[in-house]
């Protein structure tokens, strides 16, 4: 390859891992945040559904006794 061309592109190849790494890290940060939010949302929803159904049973039970 032409040594002048090599000189012109000398920083390109060595920068690739840094540039790709930077883009990956940004997406990883966003993905971790979305993933953690999704897991938390599922946990809350599960807990909420279970509590609501228990509450309904409790209320029904009380009204029957009354």
């Amino acid at each position, binding site marked *: 390859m*032409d040594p002048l061309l090599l000189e*012109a592109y000398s920083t*390109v190849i060595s920068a690739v891992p840094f540039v790709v790494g930077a883009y990956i*890290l940004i997406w990883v940060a966003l993905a971790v945040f979305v993933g953690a939010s999704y897991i*938390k*949302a599922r946990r809350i929803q599960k807990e909420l559904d279970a*509590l609501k159904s228990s*509450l309904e049973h*409790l209320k029904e039970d*009380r009204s029957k006794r009354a």
Partner: protein
Amino acid sequence: MKTKLLSSNKLVLAVVCIALLLILLDIFMAFFISPLVRGARLSEPVIIVGQMVANKLLFSQKIFYLHVPVALSSFIALLFTAVFSIRYLIKRDPLDDMRAYSCTEIALVFVLATMASGILWTRFEWGSWWVWEPRLTTYFILTLMVLAYFVLRLNIEDADREASFAAVFGILAFINVPISFFVTRIVPSSIHPVIFRTDSGLSSSMLIPFIAGMIGCLLLSFVLYKLRISLKKSDFELQQVKEEFESLYKKRLKEKRVVGDK
């Protein structure tokens, strides 16, 4: 069900799609259409694709197309933290506290993404993982303040006190935003590149992906905000249902005891 997050809201889903498309357009244009910027002078000019090139071509600048939109999104998220914090201090509406809290969470993600991508650029361009340069230093302080916001919230038991202290701290954290933004223009020794200036002369092939990335990141922040605020509302509902359940359960136990005594 109230907590059907993204899937239940068509508007939010549409915004997610537009945001991701814009960011993908930004990345595509950055790598395949925007020209490489010029660095140090070559020993001799060379002709590449019919063009005379007299400088080294810099690929590391490609980080700018997503790093800057992400950094600016962190600033805007903190601006909203301050706005909702002020509103909370005036109206004492818990919803404003939830909004400020959610905005700071978004700010934290974008701050960490900015730091991670910036550190890689610094390592390549300046040959060091960290340089105590004005922009980096002020942004590092900003990062610490955002982290401190969460530490503060986790360490106060009383909900009203937590919200009030966090509101004041959120406003203080925002004060660092204009300082960090303008420091590269104010301090002459700053070596951090300045993007927004009157003579920046970004060509349209560089400006369009940047603007697409900027709008994409802002839309993504909005979606993440909606996601977190919906989570907080559900969590609040959960606490209320828990309290109702506990009080009913206690009443039932008392009734059982009374029947047992009789």
